[in-house]
């Protein structure tokens, strides 16, 4: 064989070998310590009571579908899925990915999803049973194929990553409820090692993880809980931890300029807004002109810049990148003259006094101060706020419609959704008219029959492009009528890590804290 032929063959072989080597992941090595500001309580997806719980269990458990780092929806444990019609009722048909293993070595099958469905719908166990309320039956076709039959359309089921978590039935049968919750076993990239409440969570990279390319490259991970901002920053600066979440907004710029440090900022799925009573004839906000006046009266951009150090993103009804986002729908501009004119037109030339309830527990950075600033702008325009602070427990009870008493003014509020977010469920709660016992308008102080009909249509729509169009339509009407509150901003969260760390932020589960791809530089 000629020399050049040997060289070409050798080069070809080398490239094939290199390609194959690239497919086989290097075993995870090394230790990494990071810090979160907040701590999950429950490690069991069914018993979880708050989004923060996903910070922990979201590293261990996985879903059928999820968004990738660019917020594009990708099939995950589902190899494929589709929404079908069966006798006028929708059915979600799912084919599972084969060869997926739980941390115990058990293989993931349809039985595990049937178990998860039954566990999630049981209201004695699950706090999320209402999310399974539209499901009529769960049918196992074969170990890797199942069908979810619905009584009627449920668009939020599709929008929220098919709602189900992969939970091991075999493991539950072996260990029982308590151990199942405290020593979680999933199919995720991280295996549970130990947890000390108020201190840390220890995880180990799962060697048999099904996804060879998108997985952690560090073997042992410790997540410390450091709630105090400055202590977390100090721990990072001293090198005690190599990655932190929730860099305080006032320090984001400093971190961005810090040598040897990389930062990433993400928009939170929490949507801040100012709710206002528009039902009661006696309150001025019943008049759309007063609601619009309120919208023109607040300089949200200035507040974001000065109070939040720029760490917030303004939005109009639906945030950028979310389902139904309409780039042509712009927030109300700051126009105090127009605000006063609208108030005068509505019969309030001298303005009026009104209670304004402000959440004082900081669910988001500087939330209390943001509320105070918003109410100060309203007062300056003639909507004279009598500000009353509310801590979280009082605030959450106050906002619900089944409480005694009455909401008689403005109050700072927020609504959350997944990533990418779909406002269907939140709007059903705070825009749709309150219907006792029917699940509609649980926190609503608004009533608009046209919007009600559209939101009900949205609930039943399981086709994602159709949902997108419908959300745009609702958003525009909602915006024009300032219905269901006045949308203000979405907080921006910043993470920082030392240059010895590699990190790609995955949006869910865990709201960008998912550590699907984290490691140490080799």
């Amino acid at each position: 064989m000629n020399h050049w032929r040997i060289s070409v063959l050798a080069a070809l072989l080398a490239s094939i070998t290199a390609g194959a080597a690239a497919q086989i992941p290097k075993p995870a090595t090394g230790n990494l310590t990071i810090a979160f500001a907040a701590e999950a309580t429950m490690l069991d997806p069914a018993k979880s009571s708050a989004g923060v719980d996903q910070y922990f269990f979201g590293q261990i458990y996985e879903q059928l579908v999820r968004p990738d780092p660019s917020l594009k929806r990708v099939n995950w444990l589902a190899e494929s899925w589709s929404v079908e019609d069966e006798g006028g009722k929708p059915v979600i048909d799912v084919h599972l990915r084969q060869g997926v293993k739980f941390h115990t070595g058990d293989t993931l099958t349809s039985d595990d999803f049937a178990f998860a469905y039954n566990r999630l719908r049981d209201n004695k166990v699950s706090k999320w049973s209402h999310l399974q309320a539209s499901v009529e039956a769960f049918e196992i076709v074969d170990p890797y194929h199942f069908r979810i039959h619905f009584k009627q359309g449920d668009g939020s089921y599709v929008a929220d990553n098919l709602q189900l978590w992969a939970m091991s039935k075999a493991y539950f049968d072996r260990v029982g409820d308590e151990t199942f919750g405290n020593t979680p076993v999933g199919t995720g990239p991280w295996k549970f090692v130990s947890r000390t409440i108020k201190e840390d969570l220890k995880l180990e990279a799962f060697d048999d993880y099904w996804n060879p390319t998108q997985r952690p490259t560090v073997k042992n991970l410790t997540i410390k809980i450091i709630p105090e901002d400055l202590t977390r920053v100090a721990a990072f600066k001293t090198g005690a931890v190599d990655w932190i979440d929730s860099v305080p907004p006032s320090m984001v710029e400093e971190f961005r300029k810090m040598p040897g440090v990389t930062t990433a900022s993400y928009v939170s799925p929490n949507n801040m807004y100012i709710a206002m009573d528009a039902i009661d004839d006696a309150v001025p906000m019943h008049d759309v002109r007063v609601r619009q006046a309120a919208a023109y009266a607040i300089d949200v951009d200035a507040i974001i810049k000065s109070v939040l150090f720029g760490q917030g993103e303004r939005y109009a009804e639906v945030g950028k990148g979310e389902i139904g986002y309409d780039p042509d729908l712009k927030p109300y501009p700051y126009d105090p003259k127009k605000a006063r004119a609208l108030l005068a037109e509505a019969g309030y030339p001298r303005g009026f006094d009104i209670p304004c309830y402000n959440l004082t527990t900081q669910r988001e950075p500087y939330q209390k101060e943001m509320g105070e600033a918003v109410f100060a702008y309203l007062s300056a325009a003639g909507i004279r706020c009598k500000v009353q602070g509310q801590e979280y427990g009082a605030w959450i009870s106050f906002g619900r419609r089944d409480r005694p008493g009455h909401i008689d003014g403005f109050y700072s509020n927020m609504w959350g959704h997944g990533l990418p977010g779909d406002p269907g469920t939140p709007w059903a709660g705070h825009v749709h008219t309150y219907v006792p016992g029917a699940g509609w308008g649980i926190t609503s102080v608004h009533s608009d029959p046209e919007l009600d009909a559209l939101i009900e249509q949205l609930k039943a729509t399981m086709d994602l492009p159709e949902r997108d169009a419908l959300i745009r339509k609702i958003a525009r009407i909602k915006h024009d009528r300032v219905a269901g509150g006045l949308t203000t901003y979405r907080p921006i969260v910043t993470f920082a890590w030392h240059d010895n760390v590699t990190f790609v932020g995955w949006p869910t589960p865990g709201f960008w804290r998912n550590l699907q791809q984290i490691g140490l530089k080799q």
Partner: protein
Amino acid sequence: MSRFLLHRLLQGLVSIVGASIVIFLISRLSGDPVQILLPSDATPEMIAETRRTLGLDLPLWHQYVIFAWDALRGDFGRSYRWQMPALRLILDRLPATILLAVCGLIFSVAVAVPVGVLSAVRPGGWTDRVGRIFAMLGQAMPAFWVGLLLILLFAVQLNWLPAFGYGGVSHIIMPAIALGWYPVAAQTRIVRSAMRDVLDSDYIRLSRALGTPERWIVWKYALRNAAVPLLTMLGVYFAAMLGGAFVVETIFAWPGVGRTVVEAVFSRDFPVVQAGVLFTSILFVLSNLLVDLTYGIVDPRIRDDR
């Protein structure tokens, strides 16, 4: 002595029962935990079901009877949030808080006694002036600020001590100082004023006349008598530290019971609040009892009177 002890134990028991009733009622007046436990889109039926499951639909007196009866058997219920026995949640964290409070108390006494004594020995002197400035600073600097300053200096700038966490001796130094800093001022004043009174008394003058070395007079004879008022306050300070450890625990990510209970208050996790407050009350009663017992050691006259 035993009668006295029995009397104080009974008083302590009444205090604990009283505390349990007060905390039971106050926590329930603060709002409905079910609203916080469930997602915002939970239906009224789910809310009603959860309330029933947790026994919150029963009349208040009935809930208290169940709580008291179970508590007597060591069962404080399950945490609504953590879904684990509230007692375990508290007892797992109690040692960290007791360690912090004890170290904080040791720090404060270790600083307050020498500063107070030296201030009393030479009133108006430089030690007295420094002592007063020290006392003023102690009262003016809240624990969270002291904690952050310590972190900035000893962790970030000097890199001598860890910025957070629970572990070896190096981890306890800054939290103990931050917690013990505030009472130093008051303790210094107590020691100074008690020492001034004692140093002016007849038996001290007699000792001096007899030529007893001043060091003996101050540190052996005077301090022993001057310690009684400080001892009286130590029980109170210890209890205050147990209750006030929350701030320091948060700053230093210290896994103590204070942080757990305060978070439980905000989330209306009644079983954890009740267990936490009850155990803090027990510690309060025990620490005061211990103080009462030490009177007798310091001053035999008190022991004999009983």
